[in-house]
Structure formats: C-alpha cells, structure tokens
C-alpha cells in the first residue's frame, strides 16, 4: 500500500472544489451545480473505496499511514512550538471514509428527488458538498487541532442546513440552538486540546498514543486530578456536545427543522457520529484518564432517556431524532465499556440504517401534501395504511426498523448485541456496571417498541386522514428515490458487517476466514507507538507506515481458551436477552398499534404525569431556558453588565473623561495664552516694524538715488573723520 498524496487528497478536495465552484455558479446553472456535487462525491467514493479495499485485502499487515508536513514552526531555542498537519489513516479511518462517501453519495442522489422543487435547490447542494468535505477531512485528520477546525466547519454547515427553511417559524431558533449547544461542548474540547498540548507539546494522535505508552501523562496533576483525566473529560465533553449525549442532547430534536436529506446526512449518519469517532480515536486517553465508567453511564442514560421520550412523539422525524440520540447513547456506552470495535461497528451500521430511515421518512413526508395548508405532513396521527400507496418506501423502512430494533440477521442486532454483551461482561466483573448495562437493555426494549409503533402508525391500519390519503399519489418508479433506499436497505443485512452464522467472514487469516470488523478494527496499542516514524507529506510513493500487533482485547485472538470461552458465554447470554427483549418490544407494539388489543390510552391515563414529562422531554428544555439561562446565565450576564456599565463605565471611564476635561482646560488656556500669544506677538511686532520700513520703500527710483548719495556721503564722512 504505497500511497501518494494523489490517493488521499481527492477524497477531501473533490467535494471541496465542488463547493467552491458551485458557490459561484449555483444561481445560474443549478442543474450543473447539482451534477457537480453528486459527481464529486461519487469520485471521492471511488478513492475511498480503493483505500478501504486495500485495507480489507491486506488487513494482516495492519498498516497505518501517517504523513505530515510542518504547518508552522515557531520554535525558539529549546522551546519547541511546532505544528504539523497531515493525514492519519488506519483501518478505522478507511472504513469511515468508505461509509461517509457511500452514504453521502446516496443521500445526494435522494436529494435530487426530495429537493427538486425547492426554490433553493442548488444552495442545498452547496452546503452538502462543504459539509461532506469537512467530515472527510475530519476523518483523515492527523491531529486534534485539524479535527477541531473541521469539527467547527461541520458545526457551521449544520447551522446553515438546520436554518435552511428560514421562512419557517422556529428554524432560525433551532439552528441557533444547535450551534450554541454544541459550542458548549466545543469549548471543553478546546480546553482538552490545550491540556494535551501542555503535557506533550503536540496534539497528533500518534504523539498522544506514544506519550500514553511512555507514561508521560502519569502523575501530572491539575485541579486535583491527573492531567490525563482532565484532558479525557474535556475531550469527551466535546463528544457529548457533538453527539448529542445527556445533558447536551437538547439540540438534536430541534435540528429536524432542516430538510430531511440533510437530517439523514448530518444528524444521523455522519456529523453526530464524528463525536463518537473522536471518542474512539482518543480511546487510549479515556482509558488512561479512567473515565470510562462515567462515559458508560452517560451513554446508558442517553440511550434509555431518549428512547423513553421517543415513545410519545407523534412527529415521524421526532421519533427518528430521539432514536438517533438513543443509538448514539449505545455507541458511547460501547466506548465506555471498552467495546472498541463494537462501538465503531454500531456507528457504521447505525449510519447506514438511520440514513435509510430518514430518507424513507422523507419519502413519506414528501408524498403527503396537505392541500389546505400547502404543507407537507409529518404527523403520524394523520398517516396510516400507507404501505399500499408506497411499497418501496415501506420495504426500505421495514428493513431499517428491523435493523434498529435489533432483530437477528440485521445489522443493528449484530452491533448493538455486541455492545450489550460487552457491557454485560463488564457488569459481571464489576457490579457498578450493572447501571449502564440495564439502562442499555431497557433502552433496547423501548427501541423495538417505539420503532414498530412508528411503522404501524405510518404504514398499517386504516388511513386516519381520509382526504390526505386519497390525495396521495401511488409511488412511482423514480430511480433517484428508490435506488438509494434499496441500496441502503440492502446494507442493513447483518452479513455485511459480521460473519455468517458459522462465524465465517470475508477476510482470510492463515487460511481461515474471519469477520472483517473484528480483525480490522483494533484498539490502538499505545506501547507500539513509541518508535513511530513520521513520513513527510510528498507526491512520491513512500514506504507504508508502521505495523502494529493486533489488540489483545479482541476475543478471537491471544486470550487463554478459558477466558475466551467465558467471553463467548457472556456474549451468548447477552445475545439471547437481546433477542428476547427485541421481540418483546415488537410484540407489545403489535398488541397496541396493529391488533389494537391493548389500549395505549390506558397507559397514558395511568401514568399521566410521566406522559406529560415525556412529552415535555423531561422538562430539560424548560430547565435550560428557565433555570440555566434565565436564573443562571442571565443573572451572571446582568451582573457582568452592571459591573461593566454601572461601575467600570460610570466611574473608571467617566472618571477618565473628567480628568481629561480638566487637563484639556488647563492645556487649552496655556496654549491660547502663552504658545499662541507668543506666536502672535512675533507676527504683530514684525508687522508694526514693517509699517515704518515700508514708507522708505516708495518705488520711486530717484528717491533711491538720493539714498545712495546720502549713504555714500555718510560713509565718506565717516572715513574722513
């Protein structure tokens, strides 16, 4: 795998140039701009696919590619201050690139269907191109600073896309809310970067791994805790903001104001996944900082809490929004329980099926058009029976729902079950881990329930709004809607991510076939990074990067047989429990919404207080608005404003003004009387003297003659005397 810059740079630069070109031509040549956007993503997909399949085929060598160039070097003496930029590709990066470009391409294609009649059709693609290039650049980033740069760039694109329908009431506020809420996490992320920089003078991932391997983070204290803990907490708070974890999850549901394809790309498949991706990248740091338990609890709370709120949502996109938060919670839970490759696997599988779910929801919303209000309908109580009208969408959404609910043979089952299995393993080892584990299992039950509730309310039963149903056209075979849906729903099958039932996978190790995910995605072993060799960023092929040993974590490798057996055993228990609760959730949903045997109203009335709490999202928005902002931030702001206006402005600034006025008066008088007076006196005296002298300068030449004679006479008289 000899890579030059030409293998890697186009992945980022193609969408970026598409953005740069489209920004100028989009008004006049809209369809050309759309074509350029889609084509550029397809191009980067091919480049990413080459890297991905190279890793897949040569996985046993387990490369990472790390190339840097110096961005700036302000070193002075023995004070190093040097910043490198570059790329870092390991198997996780390669998988991520493949997923992002693939999903983004399909979403772009779908957008040509969904956004076609929008009056800002072209502008949507401009933002999408910029967003995709930022995400790809983040994935390729070699250090935390460039991660942070592209992280913020995505935040901006997200802001623009959430507020895309800016005429709509609330869209502007929603985009502002998303931007500001994630900013809270980003500030901490920046603190984390600074903390890391202060220890090792570099923010490169490889340097961080090497420093962790060399134990440089040990024994340094800040705020009473090891510096690794501080840095890990700060970096993880960045994840909390970006990946909408408790307690900063409030922005994601409101982000559904954006167009549905952008929700599919940004708020389900890629941007929110970037937070989890960062956590995985910094996993050794989290481990060294010993905050994994806290991470797992936050993940568990998010997974369960968001799932409960999703139970009572009636907006089809809101259900999906909360399910996204919930699934991100599972990923974070996976990070917390050390389930490195399962967390990443869930990121990938979730990206695929959630993108598909959003696109299906978009397809439904786009088809349902209210002729009275001229708006699209998103409310599930007005749907029902739609499977007769739109069979393709129904099929795609069903596949994805099966996947997210954790039904066997689908991708969500494989990844979620592994996370829960690892959580169970941790719980058996340490009883405190029962809290996140049980939250995770409960969330899995609720997930199956609310997803099938959504399916039944949307596609089954009698149409509840007859007029709307009659007006809905039968689904046509428009390729740019159906092809992305069908491709994505095909990839919800578990077999693409895990091995077959017999444990056989795609890739060969020593003649035996293994699952690619387990062999490819391994936790970076920090002790292997001490002898790193940084390669210059060049246009010529250079020898590929270092290799490192496979992780000791992976249950298939290197463990004593007894321990491996124990792990398998626990995983089997976890899988069994997962299957049972998934089917349990589906069964309850069927009883309530398909067969109508159990009345949901009964539960609503019995737990009416809880129902209201859920409808109000546990009052967290109100809490932030009324307590944090009004009682807290506004008070602080008012105090600061008083200090500024009442004290500083009044006494310091105005006092300075008074002093200046006095000084001014003194200096004015001095100036007027003495300096100016002196100047005037000189002029006036000269003028007065002139009056005398002027009289003898009459201009009459004979007068001058007389003067000459008189002077000469006087001179001669003086000589002769």
């Amino acid at each position: 795998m000899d890579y030059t810059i030409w293998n890697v740079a186009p992945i980022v630069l193609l969408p970026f140039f598409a953005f740069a070109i489209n920004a100028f031509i989009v008004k006049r040549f809209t369809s050309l701009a759309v074509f350029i956007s889609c084509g550029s993503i397809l191009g980067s997909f091919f480049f990413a696919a080459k890297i991905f399949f190279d890793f897949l085929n040569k996985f046993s060598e387990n490369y990472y590619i790390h190339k840097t160039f110096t961005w700036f070097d302000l070193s002075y003496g023995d004070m190093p201050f040097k910043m490198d930029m570059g790329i870092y590709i390991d198997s996780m990066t390669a998988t991520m690139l493949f997923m992002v470009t693939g999903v983004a391409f399909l979403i772009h294609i779908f957008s040509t269907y969904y956004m076609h009649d929008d009056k800002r059709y072209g502008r949507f693609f401009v933002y999408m191109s910029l967003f995709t290039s930022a995400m790809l650049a983040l994935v390729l980033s070699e250090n935390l600073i460039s991660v942070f740069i592209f992280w913020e760039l995505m935040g901006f694109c997200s802001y623009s896309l959430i507020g895309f329908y800016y005429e709509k009431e609330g869209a502007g506020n929603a985009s502002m809310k998303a931007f500001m809420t994630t900013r809270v996490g980003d500030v901490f992320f920046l603190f984390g970067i600074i903390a890391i920089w202060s220890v090792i003078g570099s923010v490169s991932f490889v340097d961080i791994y090497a420093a962790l391997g060399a134990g440089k983070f040990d024994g340094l204290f800040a705020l009473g805790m090891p510096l690794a803990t501080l840095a890990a907490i700060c970096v993880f708070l960045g994840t909390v903001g970006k990946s909408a974890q408790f307690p900063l999850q409030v922005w994601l549901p409101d982000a559904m104001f954006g167009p549905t394809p952008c929700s599919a790309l940004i708020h389900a498949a890629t941007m929110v996944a970037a937070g989890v991706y960062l956590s995985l990248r910094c996993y050794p740091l989290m481990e060294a900082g010993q905050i994994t338990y806290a991470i797992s609890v936050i993940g568990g709370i998010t997974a369960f809490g968001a799932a409960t709120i999703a139970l009572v949502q009636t907006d089809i996109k809101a259900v999906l929004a909360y399910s996204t938060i919930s699934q991100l919670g599972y990923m974070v839970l996976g990070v917390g329980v050390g389930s490195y490759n399962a967390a990443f696997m869930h990121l990938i599988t979730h990206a695929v099926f959630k993108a598909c779910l959003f696109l299906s929801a978009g397809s439904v919303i786009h088809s349902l058009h209210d002729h009275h209000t001229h708006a699209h309908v998103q409310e599930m109580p007005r749907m029902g029976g739609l499977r007769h009208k739109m069979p393709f969408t129904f099929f795609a959404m069903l596949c994805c729902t099966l996947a997210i609910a954790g039904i066997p043979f689908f991708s969500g089952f494989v990844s979620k079950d592994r996370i829960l299995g690892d959580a169970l393993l941790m719980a058996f080892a340490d009883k405190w881990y029962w809290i996140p584990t049980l939250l995770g299992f409960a969330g899995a039950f609720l997930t199956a329930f609310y997803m099938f509730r959504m399916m039944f309310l949307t596609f089954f039963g009698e149409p509840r709004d007859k007029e709307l149903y009659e007006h809905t056209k039968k689904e046509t075979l428009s390729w740019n809607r159906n092809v992305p849906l069908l491709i994505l729903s095909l990839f919800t099958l578990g077999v693409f991510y895990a091995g077959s039932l017999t444990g056989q996978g795609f890739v060969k190790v020593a003649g035996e076939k293994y699952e690619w995910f387990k062999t490819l995605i391994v936790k970076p072993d920090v002790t292997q990074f001490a002898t790193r060799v940084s390669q210059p960023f060049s246009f010529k092929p250079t020898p590929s990067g270092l290799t490192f040993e496979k992780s000791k974590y992976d249950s298939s490798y290197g463990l004593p047989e007894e321990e491996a057996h124990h792990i398998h055993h626990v995983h089997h228990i976890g899988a069994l429990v997962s299957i049972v609760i998934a089917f349990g959730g589906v069964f309850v949903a069927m009883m309530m919404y398909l067969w109508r045997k159990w009345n949901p109203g009964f539960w609503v009335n019995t737990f009416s207080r809880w129902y209201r709490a859920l409808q109000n999202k546990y009052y967290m928005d109100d809490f932030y608005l009324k307590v944090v902002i009004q009682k807290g931030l506004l008070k602080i702001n008012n105090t600061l404003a008083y200090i500024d206006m009442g004290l500083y402005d009044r006494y310091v600034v105005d006092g300075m003004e008074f002093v200046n006025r006095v000084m001014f008066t003194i200096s004015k008088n001095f100036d007027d009387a003495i300096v100016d007076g002196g100047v005037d006196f000189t002029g006036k005296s000269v003028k007065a003297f002139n009056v005398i002298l002027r009289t003898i300068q009459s201009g009459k030449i004979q007068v001058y003659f007389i003067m000459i004679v008189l002077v000469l006479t006087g001179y001669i008289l003086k000589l002769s005397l």
Partner: protein
Amino acid sequence: MVSLSSYLFISFALFVSGLAVMIARKNIIAILLGIELILNSAALNFAAYTRFVNQNLDGHLMSLFIIVIAAAEAAVGLAIVIRFFQIKETIHIDDATQLQA
C-alpha cells in the same frame, strides 16, 4: 600750466551736475544723460590722476573701459526706454511703477 586741481574741479562739477540731473529730472533720457555725465567725470578723474600722479597708462586704459561701458550702458538703457515707451507711451520716471511692491 593747468594743475590737477582744475581737472578735479571740472570733474567735480560734472559729477554734481550729473547727480543733480539724475535726481531732479523726470525724463528718463535726461537721467541717462546724467549718468553719462557722472561716468565722464569719473573718466576725467582717472585721466587726470594718471597724468599727474604716477605717469603710466593705467588711468587711460581705465578711461577707455569707462567709455566702452558708457556706450554699452547707453545702448541698453535706451533699449529699455524704448520698450518702456512702447508699453506706457511715456518716458516719465514716476510712471515706471511696475516693479513697485
């Protein structure tokens, strides 16, 4: 025998009358004439002193220089007067005020 003092007396008379003409007359040509008289008195002085005091030709030479200078001065002066007359149509000295401050 004509003594030095008689030459000097004539020279003095010429000088004084030239000066008087220069100061008193308003006609520019008359003033030029006055200047000629003064120059001539100086030339006469040179000639007289060289004849009676050091007996060489330096004074004569100087007199010849003065005659040449006087001729040149008269030519330039008259040219100026003619131009002045063309502009002002007068040769009255008090009308020559263009250089006055």
